[in-house]
């Protein structure tokens, strides 16, 4: 039973609770225990590091220090949290002065971060730690014929961490294939969904969302799979506003990749937090296992 220091992040409390539920359900099936970090706090998301770098690093470092105490690898399902945590750890390891500053502040909570914590995104746990063979063996109801657009979003891969291929990664496609689904050729899979721009400059973000939806429709995708609550919101909840803005009538279901895995593992949609979607899921998708003819017309 491999354990991880699980850092849900603010959105998985409320808005993205389905991501949390489906994550816990599917990891449970794969013999992984997500031990929630005790007394964790917000990571500053995309906005804060732009405002005050030192304080945003301190916010993340606090959670890293708590995780370091548990001695487990740190797992963040949301791409923004993952990026913040990963790079805070890297900067603190590299910059002794920064580490000293932050640790001085952490002493208030008698916490200390010395740097030896491995930070992982939730999808890495499935792909690298568990492995596709193990996942394939747990699939009871493969998503036959379901065409899925693998949407990486921009924050898992960038900034580049080591020597991974940031231009044309393939691991998401391989994961979807492992659960029986049909990953489509999705050229804009690495393009940004607009992130917090959806608030500060709506039309720009909406046009980015529109391109992502258009590309998914061009690839006859039945559903877009996401790995981050921010992308989920922008792609799913704003489809109506995209349609109003650009006169399109997109109605493309958007699900977390953990929800799709859950379906393939035969877990009931309810347990995966499904049913509260803005864009109605095609009934066939819920039943999983049967081809899904319905696409939305451009």
């Amino acid at each position, binding site marked *: 039973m491999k354990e991880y220091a699980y850092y849900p992040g603010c959105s998985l409390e409320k808005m993205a609770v389905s991501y949390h539920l489906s994550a816990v359900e599917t990891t449970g099936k794969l013999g992984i225990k997500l031990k929630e970090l005790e007394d964790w706090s917000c990571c500053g998301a995309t906005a804060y590091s732009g405002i005050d770098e030192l304080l945003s690093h301190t916010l993340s470092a606090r959670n890293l220090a708590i995780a370091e105490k548990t001695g487990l690898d740190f797992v963040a399902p949301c791409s923004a949290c993952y990026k913040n945590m990963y790079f805070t750890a890297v900067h603190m390891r590299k910059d002794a002065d920064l580490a000293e500053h932050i640790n001085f502040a952490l002493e208030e909570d008698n916490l200390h971060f010395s740097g030896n914590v491995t930070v992982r995104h939730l999808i890495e746990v499935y792909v690298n730690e568990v492995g596709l063979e193990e996942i394939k063996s747990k699939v009871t109801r493969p998503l036959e014929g379901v065409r899925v657009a693998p949407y990486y979003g921009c924050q898992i891969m960038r900034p580049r961490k080591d020597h991974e*291929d940031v*231009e*044309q990664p393939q691991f998401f496609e391989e994961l979807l294939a492992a659960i029986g689904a049909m990953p489509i*050729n999705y*050229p*804009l899979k690495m393009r940004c969904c607009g992130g917090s721009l959806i608030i500060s400059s709506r039309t720009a973000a909406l046009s980015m969302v529109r*391109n992502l939806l*258009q*590309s998914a429709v*061009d690839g006859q995708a039945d559903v877009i799979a996401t790995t981050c609550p921010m992308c989920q919101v922008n792609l799913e909840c704003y489809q109506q506003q995209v349609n109003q803005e650009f006169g399109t009538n997109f109605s493309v279901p958007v699900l977390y990749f953990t929800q799709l895995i859950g379906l393939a593992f035969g877990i009931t949609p309810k347990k995966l937090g499904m049913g509260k979607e803005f864009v109605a899921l095609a009934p066939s998708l819920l039943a999983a296992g049967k081809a899904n003819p319905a696409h939305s017309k451009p």
Partner: protein
Amino acid sequence: MEKIGVYVCHCGTNIAGVVNVEEVRDWTAKNLKDHGVVISRDYKFMCSSLGQELIEQDIKEQGLTRVVVAACSPHLHEATFRKACGRAGMNPYMCELVSIREQASWVHTDKVAATQKSKAILSGGVRRVEYHTALEPLKVSIHPDTMVVGGGIAGIQAALEIADAGFHVYLVEREPSIGGHMAQFDKTFPTLDCSACILTPKMVDVGSHPNITLLTWSEVTKVDGYVGNFTVTVKKKASYVNNDTCTGCGICWEKCPKKVVDNVYEAGMGIRKAIYRPFPQAVPKYPVMDVDTCIYFEKGTCKACEKFCPTEPNSINFEQKDEFLDIPVGNIILATGYDAFDPHRIPQYGYGRLPNVFTSLEFERLCNAAGPTGGNILLRDGKTAPKVVGIVHCVGSRDKNYNEGCSAICCMQSLKFAHLVHERTGAEVYNFYIDIRTPGKSYDEFYQRLLEEGTHFVRGKVAEISDAVRLPGEEGKLVIQVEDTLTGNQLRVPVDMAILSVGLEPRADAKEVAKLFGISCSANGWFTERHPKLDPVATMTDGIYIAGCVQGPKDIPASVAQGAATAARVLGKIQQKEIALEPVRASVLEEKCSGCRICNDLCPFNAILFHEDKMVSEINAALCQGCGTCVAACPAGAISGTGFSNEQVLAQIEGLLLLNISEDAVPA
């Protein structure tokens, strides 16, 4: 006690500008008197004829037995001053040139420190020269035969020039036919001559030349010996075709059932058979059998080629074995060419994923009349002609992530492509470039012609080639995303076909080949020339020359010129019949050697041999390159080295540290 003459050079102001030459001269006369210095002069230009005459006069009149010149680097004028001493009757190796220009005046600003350092350098030279011994250069005979490795245009030119001069050449080529990359091209820039038309006559000359032994489908596996006396082992791979009886009629590859994608000559665009001749004008004209794909070698069945072969006796021979030939040659010319950059390494350009993205070599095959589409420029489906074509320059070149250097030929090559597309399809053409580099004769005129033909030139490095449609009019097209740096706009240019003008890279096995021939190559793999400016076709290893793209990216005229240049150098060596090798050698004093065999494995040139009977080691002076590693390693001190003996080096160290020199001489 030796009689030493010391000559301190001004080198105009190069030395005298920083080093107080007079002070050094007088200091030497005064303080190195008891080490044999009888004369200490200074002169404006020691390397000038007047400067040299100063030395010669002193040797004749004062009976000098040693000379030390303090001037520039020994790599520049050691030979000059040695010759001067030789003319005056002193053994040239009694002369030592120490550098107070590159090692003092040019690299230090503090004049006092530079002057004191020059004294120390000179003192080192004087103390060293006391232990110099008279040496005679090693005379070595030159074998008149030459080996050219690599049958591209550079290798062909070298081979023809030497053969025409009446000397024998072995031309070794890894592929079944000579011709190299040039044989794959359709046209050549800037004259738009058909590549085959200007190449094949030379290939035919090579094939029929009485002085050229052509060893195709062969590779060099081992190189022994040294300049004038190399023994090269060539592995002649079995072609399973008896070239004596085969007429090259072609029935065998017509009947052969096994089709294979030709990744070499056709750059993956066309197919060949298991038994094949790469292209119609191939020299030699005989086919070779590809063991990896031939059905007989796989399942033991078929043998169609043998059945249909009309010759008597049958030219197909499945029992043929690889042959290993040990070939004695005097000189070796390496002309092994380049590899084209594989654009798979730039995923965002979509090569291999998006069908209508082509490499330059693939496009050359498209244009070539003997190519897979008979010369018609068509999309990957082989049917539709492109209406809009985008040509991307500098793919994999001038890029920190791939190859930093400029590949010299891709601009002109891209312009040629643009012209061919205009001429053959009338399509719109976009060239995406960083800088248009057209340095050759009438190259830029060719560029002006392209402008007049209405080619669109966009100055910007292409960011991405994608099939993600965003704007109307992009359906079914490849969209080239690029920033036009001259207007500052982001452009999305929809095209039907994209041609990646890939850069030139060193051969994948360049490092191993360099090691095989005992020469050095740069970090990325281009072979290192003896001097980048003044000696680009020789290497640090005597007797081994390099020509063409193996030394770095260049166009055909430069490759041909270098091919001819190496031929001239080789012919020069052959005519000398024998040459003098630097007499820097090691030798074992037999009575001191205890046969401990520590040295036996230290010589990469296999110059150290061991006599089991006498239990002593011995050094073959001809093979020894004079590196001195065994001299330093011998625990019994039984190996001595000329030119850099222990006594000379230890004395030079004492000199540099100004030992046993009167008090006031100690630098401040």
